[in-house]
């Protein structure tokens, strides 16, 4: 098929660098997101968002009906109208408390802070009232700021001594000024200050133990150490609890036993008394502190407190959630990623709310949501970028690879301008265009192929067929359309042949001779199969090339016939002539006539042999094997011994001194050397010698052996040397008539052509140097067998190097 890759470009692309880069970026992003999330959580940067969500979630909370045992007694606007502006005289206050205490309430939270002493009789009155019931008084801890000791404000010791207990009774406003949380305990100068409602509810001891357990070993922390934070579970808007106006209590207008066994919270409710705070359930007007405390008490009594998740756990949970998302980054498709990202965030939000609603545990989700969204956006864009880079690189590589050699450089590649996306689109456009051109090119090449070419699937379904194949199919009455079966066409060819060979399925054994069939018009078609597929993969199809070998076959047949003629038909009558000459009836014929007949018969024989040998040297398969050149030369010399003997010419083979192992066809190389030696002997005057010598040489940069065959004949002119190796060229000598006659009678003209052919097919060179009157030297240079230069191929090679045996040999040879 056509070589589509331009050779200078490597065929295998490097292992996806885009993916490698993405993995690195993934790790980088993981680190960044971890830092970012930790930063967001620890700095409280998302508190406002988290609070907003919390407020919404809090309203969704199941709101229990106000319990009947909590009563809020408020210094409200009507009370102040009736009894005067707050603060009322302490005597009046004592009256009010006494009126409550009379009914034996469960506990009274008296949320007025008596920092200074009042009139002694009033204080005494108040002291007595406080003492008459379990009354709790407030204390206040102000936090001026980090690093400063808190300022603790307490009631006068006289009043405090009458109280059942002291406690802090303030919510802690968040940075948005809204009160959502408080601390069950605060630490001040190694003193632990409880939230008042805890004392009121009688939970003080249990809470304190739990607190101490939780904070074991936390001594020595800052002076104001906010601990044991809870979120206030507001059960309803202001006025949720049973509300009684203080003036009514002062007046004793309440039914007797109204406060019996109730928790009574007394404090300011009138907006003007500045004891109102905004809460999630009362943003606009705020909620009186007393009602906030009522909410806390309610939660304490009914155990529905909300706890904030501690920071360490919150951090772990948040990081865990984000890291899970990261695992998804590597696995999920882009659209899955978006869905999972949004879904995951919503799920986390829902989880946060559900945790608040069902478990009373709050963790702020917004840091996670924000980190997640941001990271997802970054990751998606990195992914897109990586994909885009990959496409761009692959496309530009495809541009060069896809037929770069055939279609030339891409003109558009250089003038890529504008925005990167449109540049890529342009690149895709160009590539598509080029692929189309390439396809067109391949189709054209296929179509213009003179022989039928069919591309078929491994199962023999036609994928493509060129014009010649279609014509062939039409003449056979078979379809060559895409999808048609190839087999019927091949079967037709098989059946038309005399000794039918199987054409399908293709014979995949290496070196198998392609099978032949007979097509329309008696044309002989050779089916050549080329497997189509990628390197190392299974066969994806076959390209079947039906080559018309009719002319080749007939030429081969003619050649065979001619060879047959020469080897047998022509030899036989000559043999018969020679045999006849031996017959006793010929004894009477004159000697010179008999000699002439014999000589000519022999010449005809040797001509035939020469022709056959040249044909073989040119056409036959050479059987190469490692051979020591010295052996071949001695064999050739031995074969020519009788000739040399009768011409009284010595063949001298000089000792090579080492092995020269060449890859050679024993028979053909010997034949070539015989021809060359024979030639040398023929032209040598009697008594002279022909010398064969070996020398190390180089041939095309590799080690080689140079064999020289030198005669002491008359030599040749430049003209003669030029045409020496041509067919039927003769070596007419010096032109003196006697020698010419000798040449005529002996030379066959084909000998040196055989030598030249054989040496050339051994990858060797033959060279001739000759001077008239100086003799001729033929040099045959043959490449040495690789890795065998020193020749010690076997156990006894050492013997050959033995000087004694070498001496014996050379003396034997030079006889």
């Amino acid at each position, binding site marked *: 098929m056509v070589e589509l890759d331009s050779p200078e470009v490597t065929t295998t692309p490097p292992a996806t660098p885009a993916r490698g880069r993405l993995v690195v970026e993934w790790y980088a992003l993981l680190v960044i997101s971890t830092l970012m999330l930790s930063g967001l959580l620890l700095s409280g940067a998302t508190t406002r968002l988290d609070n907003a969500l919390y407020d919404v979630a809090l309203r969704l909370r199941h709101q229990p009906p106000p319990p009947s045992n909590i009563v809020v007694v408020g210094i409200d606007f009507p009370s102040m109208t009736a009894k005067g502006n707050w603060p009322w005289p302490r005597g009046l206050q004592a009256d009010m408390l006494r009126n409550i205490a009379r009914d034996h309430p469960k506990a009274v939270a008296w949320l007025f802070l008596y920092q200074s002493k009042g009139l002694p009789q009033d204080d005494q009155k108040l002291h007595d009232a406080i003492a008459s019931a379990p009354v709790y008084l407030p204390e206040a801890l102000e936090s001026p700021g980090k690093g400063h000791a808190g300022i603790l404000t307490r009631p006068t010791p006289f009043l405090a001594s009458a109280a059942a207990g002291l406690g802090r009774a303030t919510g802690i406003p968040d940075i948005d000024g809204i009160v959502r949380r408080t601390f069950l305990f605060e630490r001040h100068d190694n003193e632990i200050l409880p939230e008042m409602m805890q004392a009121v509810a009688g939970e003080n001891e249990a809470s304190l133990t739990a607190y101490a357990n939780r904070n074991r070993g936390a001594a020595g922390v800052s002076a104001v150490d906010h601990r044991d934070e809870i979120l206030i579970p507001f059960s309803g808007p202001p006025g949720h609890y049973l509300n009684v106006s203080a003036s009514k209590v002062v007046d004793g207008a309440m039914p007797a036993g109204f406060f019996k066994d109730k928790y009574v919270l007394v404090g300011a409710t009138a907006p003007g008394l500045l004891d109102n705070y905004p809460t999630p359930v009362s943003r606009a007007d705020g909620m009186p502190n007393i009602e906030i405390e009522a909410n806390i008490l309610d939660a304490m009594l009914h155990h529905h407190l909300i706890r904030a998740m501690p920071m360490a756990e919150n951090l772990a949970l948040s990081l865990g959630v984000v890291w899970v998302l990261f695992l998804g980054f590597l696995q999920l498709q882009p659209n899955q990623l978006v869905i999972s990202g949004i879904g995951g965030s919503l799920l986390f939000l829902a989880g946060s709310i559900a945790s608040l609603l069902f478990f009373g545990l709050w963790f702020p989700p917004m840091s996670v949501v924000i980190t997640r969204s941001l990271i997802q956006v970054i990751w998606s864009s990195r992914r897109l970028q990586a994909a885009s880079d990959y496409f761009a690189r692959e496309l530009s590589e495809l541009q060069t690879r896809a037929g770069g050699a055939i279609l030339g450089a891409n003109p558009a590649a250089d003038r890529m301008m504008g925005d990167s996306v449109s540049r890529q689109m342009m690149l895709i456009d160009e590539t598509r265009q080029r692929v189309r051109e390439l396809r067109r090119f391949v189709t054209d090449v296929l179509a213009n192929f003179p022989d039928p070419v069919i591309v078929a699937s491994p199962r023999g379904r036609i994928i493509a067929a060129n014009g010649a194949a279609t014509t062939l199919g039409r003449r056979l009455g078979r379809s060559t359309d895409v999808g048609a079966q190839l087999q019927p066409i091949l079967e037709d060819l098989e059946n038309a042949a005399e000794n039918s060979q199987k054409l399908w399925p293709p014979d995949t054994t290496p070196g198998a001779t392609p099978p032949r069939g007979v097509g329309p018009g008696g044309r002989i078609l050779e089916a050549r199969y080329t497997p189509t597929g990628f390197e190392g993969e299974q066969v994806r199809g076959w390209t079947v090339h039906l080559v018309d070998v009719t002319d080749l076959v007939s030429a081969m047949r003619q050649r065979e016939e001619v060879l047959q003629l020469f*080897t*047998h038909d022509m*030899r*036989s009558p*000559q*043999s*018969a002539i*020679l*045999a*006849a000459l*031996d*017959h006793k009836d010929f004894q009477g014929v004159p000697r010179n006539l008999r000699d002439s007949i014999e000589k000519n018969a022999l010449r005809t024989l040797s001509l035939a*042999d020469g022709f*056959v*040998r040249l044909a*073989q040297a040119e056409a036959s398969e050479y*059987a190469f*094997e*490692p*051979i*020591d050149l*010295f*052996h071949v030369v*001695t*064999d050739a010399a*031995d*074969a020519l*011994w*009788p000739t040399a*003997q*009768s011409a009284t010419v010595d063949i001298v083979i000089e000792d090579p001194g080492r092995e020269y*192992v060449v890859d050679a066809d*024993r*028979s053909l190389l*010997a034949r070539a050397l015989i021809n060359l030696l024979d030639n040398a002997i023929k032209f040598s005057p009697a008594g002279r010698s022909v010398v064969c010598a070996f020398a190390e040489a180089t041939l095309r940069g590799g080690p080689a052996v140079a064999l020289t065959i030198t005669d002491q004949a008359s030599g040749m002119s430049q003209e003669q040397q030029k045409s020496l190796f041509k067919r039927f060229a003769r070596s007419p000598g010096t032109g003196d008539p006697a020698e010419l006659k000798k040449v005529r009678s002996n030379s066959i003209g084909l000998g040196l052509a055989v030598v030249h052919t054989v040496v050339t097919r051994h990858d060797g060179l033959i060279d001739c140097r000759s001077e008239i009157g100086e003799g001729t030297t033929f040099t045959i240079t043959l490449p040495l067998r690789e890795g065998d230069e020193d020749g010690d*191929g*076997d*156990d*006894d*090679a050492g*013997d*050959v190097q033995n000087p004694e*045996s070498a001496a*014996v*040999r050379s003396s*034997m*040879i030079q*006889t």
Partner: protein
Amino acid sequence: MRRIAIVEDDPEELSRLTAMLSAHGQCVPFGDGQSFLKAIHRGTFDLACIDWNLPEVTGVELVKRIRGGAQAPNMPIILITARSTDEDIVAGLVSGADDYVTKPVRKPVLLARVETLLRRLAPVADDHLERFGNFTFDRSRDVVAIGDQERVLTTKEFNLALLLFRNMHRPLARSYLMEEVWGAAANVSSRTLDTHVCRLKTKLGLTPANGYNFGPVYGFGYRLEKMAPAAEMATK
């Protein structure tokens, strides 16, 4: 008296061969392969000279049938052929012929081949000395004497030489030589055989100058030949 079958379709050649061999045994002529095949059912022959180019059944085919048949699978056969190429010679030897002679047939060549093959029929003397002309092989000592001069050979060289002398004039396949001398299991390169042949040539003087032709049968193996006397060669 030995019976020698001559299968040759050309009457002139037939009579020539008969004339050459008549001194060595009773020559029985056959004009074609079929009649010879019939004849071996009835009688035995000590040797057969078969022409390659026979009508109907070719010489090579005939050799194959004889070797594959039950009557005389071991009969010594010489293939006589006008074909002179190495491939043809190998094809003939591979078909099962013991030897071949190319046309034009020379009497001394033919006689030497015939004698070698007929000698195979004679029982081998179980003596540790074997004599071939003036070569004496002492199997007990691995020593070859030429006349009264002893030549020292390695065991392998001795075995190879003995094998060649015992089968004088017979082409021996390379694989056969290697198997006989080195054993079937040995992984010997063909170059090792070449080297041994070359050394034997030198040590025993098996060169044309000494009247021996020891050379390759291309594509097949080696043959050791005792050459016809020099005078006869020269007239060729």
